[in-house]
């Protein structure tokens, strides 16, 4: 082996730093993705804390109105484009080849390029705070004509467009890479009905990215032309609504791009910690595809107040409902997987249970928002802010933390500190609900989104204060998490290949896996090859 790896990589690439900078190994790229996007998560989280500081009391004057508008614009942009999507791509990079028994991704160099484009895009977006006039301040949705040259003259908006182009390019290349890998590099016996459900999720993730990213790339390109070349795609008649159609045709599937892989993580973790197979593998796999398909039909439910005909509003309400069905199927299948299991309450399972509880809330408030007459009142209020944080934080981010704790031993060869992990969960769970539950009420009481100040006192102000304190608690939870990770990565207890008694192939490799992943891959005869292997060993021993 040593001779071959020497031929593959010259020795100067093996330095502690250069090894990481020049790597084309999917596992290292995966870790780079995860660590980098976590830094962006931290930055965007600090922005959220600053906003909650400003909103903690009526009439606060801590953050200026210009700064506030930049903060919420970059907070949203960074959380979506620089944290949730790339960290899931990081999991995909690390796990997909291992889970299907492959040596690496199909295109390792393209894979490295995806990561470096993502990093560059992230630096452009965050760096835009430093330019004259500051970062973009027209919201992550960049509605026209507000985001056009006339109303947003600064360089910040142009850098925002450039940053989106870079991250979109990164995601497109990544999506192609995932699809080619999943379709062509599955090991012997790994049929479509045997691939891990996380791989199904990455398949749907990649297909959705390929289908909708071109739309946002086109939209921001046209916006750039409007701003810099004097065209009027979005400034003329109907231009404002055209932007919203193009943006949300991408923007709504983007939600599922961020949720489906997190759901895939749940479908891996829950069976392991219940000591049961997933209930209804096919239903979970097909509901993944069902959600992906339906998610492309619902975009204009973000636009019920732009003056669409009732028939069109009714159509988009019904299509939105149609996403709720496969989503409900998943929730029920996870509950049925828990049923009669031997639930092992380690941090990964806690975060999965948190996901189920919180995502249910976000899903149901989503049904309420899809009812277009109700949306006339709740649209663009804190009710919507609460809703999508229950979906994307209570859902995706809890799923991401479940994944980090679950695969930490595989990636580092060491176990994390369980007590800190449990503390992280409870701080986060309580802080999250304190932060976002009152925002439903605030929305109904008339608090519109994206305001840097308000003058109402009494209950209105109290809810805002509770929300800010909850955000602070979440910040503390993240510090506990960082402490846990840094400490455990250096000095956690060493673990073997399979500390959880898990079912899928990545646990057959060493922890951390060798650069070439596997010496041999066992023949796969079910969706749980490792459990099959344990059974065979037990039979042989008996």
């Amino acid at each position, binding site marked *: 082996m040593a001779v071959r790896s020497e031929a593959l990589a010259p020795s100067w690439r093996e330095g502690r730093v250069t090894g990481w900078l020049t790597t084309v190994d999917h596992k290292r790229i995966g870790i780079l993705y995860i660590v980098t996007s976590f830094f962006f998560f931290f930055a965007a989280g600090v922005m959220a804390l600053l906003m909650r500081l400003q909103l903690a009391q009526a009439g606060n004057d801590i953050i200026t109105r210009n700064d506030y508008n930049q903060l919420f614009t970059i907070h949203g942009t960074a959380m979506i484009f620089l944290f949730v999507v790339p960290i899931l791509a990081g999991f995909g990079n690390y796990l997909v080849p291992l889970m299907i028994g492959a040596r690496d991704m199909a295109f390792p160099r393209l894979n490295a390029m995806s990561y470096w484009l993502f990093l560059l895009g992230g630096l452009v977006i965050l760096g835009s705070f430093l330019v004259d006039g500051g970062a973009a301040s027209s919201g992550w949705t960049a509605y026209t004509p507000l985001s056009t040259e*006339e109303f947003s003259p600064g360089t910040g908006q142009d850098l925002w467009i450039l940053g989106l182009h870079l991250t979109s390019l990164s995601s497109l290349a990544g999506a192609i890479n995932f699809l080619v890998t999943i379709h062509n590099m599955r090991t012997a016996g790994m049929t479509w009905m045997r691939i891990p459900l996380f791989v199904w999720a990455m398949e749907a993730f990649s297909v959705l990215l390929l289908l909708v990213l071109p739309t946002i790339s086109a939209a921001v390109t046209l916006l750039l032309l409007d701003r810099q070349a004097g065209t009027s795609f979005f400034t003329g008649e109907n231009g404002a609504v055209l932007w919203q159609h193009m943006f949300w045709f991408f923007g709504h599937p983007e939600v599922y791009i961020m949720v489906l892989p997190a759901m895939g993580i749940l479908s891996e973790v829950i069976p392991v910690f219940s000591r049961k197979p997933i209930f209804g593998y096919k239903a979970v796999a097909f509901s993944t595809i069902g959600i992906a398909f339906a998610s492309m039909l619902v975009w204009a439910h973000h636009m019920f107040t732009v003056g669409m005909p009732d028939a069109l509003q009714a159509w988009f309400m019904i299509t939105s409902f149609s996403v709720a069905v496969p989503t409900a199927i998943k929730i029920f299948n996870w509950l049925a997987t828990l049923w009669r299991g031997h639930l092992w309450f380690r941090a990964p399972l806690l975060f999965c249970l948190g996901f189920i509880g919180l995502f249910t809330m976000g899903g149901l408030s989503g049904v309420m928002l899809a009812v277009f007459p109700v949306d006339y009142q709740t649209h663009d209020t804190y009710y919507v802010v609460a809703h999508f944080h229950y979906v994307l934080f209570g859902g995706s981010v809890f799923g991401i933390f479940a994944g980090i704790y679950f695969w930490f031993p595989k990636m580092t060869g060491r176990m994390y500190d369980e007590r800190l992990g449990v503390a992280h969960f409870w701080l986060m769970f309580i802080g999250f609900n304190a932060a976002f*539950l009152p925002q439903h009420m605030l929305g*109904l009481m008339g608090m519109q989104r*994206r305001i840097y100040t308000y003058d109402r006192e009494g209950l209105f102000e109290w809810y805002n204060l509770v929300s800010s304190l909850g955000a602070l608690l979440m910040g503390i939870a993240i510090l506990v998490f960082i402490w846990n990770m840094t400490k455990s990565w250096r000095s956690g207890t060493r673990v073997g290949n399979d500390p959880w008694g898990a079912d899928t192939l990545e646990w057959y490799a060493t922890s951390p896996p060798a650069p070439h992943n596997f010496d041999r891959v066992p023949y796969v005869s079910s969706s749980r090859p490792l459990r099959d292997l344990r059974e065979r060993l037990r039979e042989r021993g008996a």
Partner: protein
Amino acid sequence: MGRTIVAIAAAAVALALAALPIVLALVSPGGLGGLAPPDQASPSGQAINELYWFVFGICAVVFVAVETALILFILRFRRRPTTPADAEGPQIHGNTRLEIIWTVVPSVILAVIAVVVLVRTPAVHATGGDRSDELVVRVEGHQFYWRYVYPDGQISLDTLVLPVDRPVKLELVSYDVNHSWWVHELTGKQDAIPGQVNELLLRPTVEGTYEGDCAEFCGVLHAVMPTTVEVVSREEYASRIEQLSGQDQAGDAQLALGRESWERTCAKCHGAAGEGDLGPPIARNGTLVDADALTALLNEGLDTPGVEGYMPPVGRGWPAFQVEALIEYVRSNEDLAPPEQDGGSG
């Protein structure tokens, strides 16, 4: 074992904490602490509220059912200290009949919601009352104020006066960016979008003063772009409109429109006495009384290189008499009027 107890206790604490706002909301007076949408002073607003409660009721039942199952399973199926480490649960791979049931049941529930919503949609857009008596008011969203134009051309800024019990059609337009007109105790919101006219129908049924906001992010002062709707008796409406300035009026009515234009438009960025705030100081600036220069500025805005921010085209769509009214007001105001201009009275 201690761990399990700790976990259960922690779960109970967390649930109690999560439930606390709901309990608080239920016992606190008035709007159920925000859990209930506020009472509506129009039939369409009430129709929206009825739909809210209908869908909320169904979602609440589903929510309680799912969360109860989750908590029961967590308590009932937790791994006991006596459970061997390699013990497995029953290896159930699925149950087709069960899965069909939990696919069909949500579909049916959602179909029922959809049917009810579609049946009730006409009520959401209905005003009731005599439509031939309809009052049409043009609502312009501007950075960062609302401009109302009544049928005979009278103008008011930020404050809209409506007669009680008369059907109203608001025609929403914008000359700059997207805005959204939202008076949440009257009815739902509707966007004001450049290049199109959106309609919002309502019939206010209760006299009173209603506070509203811009709901669509529209720029730096989006948070402080309030509006007030005063619903008054028909007689009072007539006399209030009488006082507002339109095309042919001069004197006090003209000065009042000028003052309103200054306070609602210029002063929001340049300060009440033009001393400068978000925008630079403009008190005693000659442009304020130069009709041509002022009209150009109000229509085009200004992006001065090197100065942070920009001036939006705040007066796009103003008729000439509103610009004149503003100039007259500036001339009449000692703090604002530029010195020794021809015809200057300050």
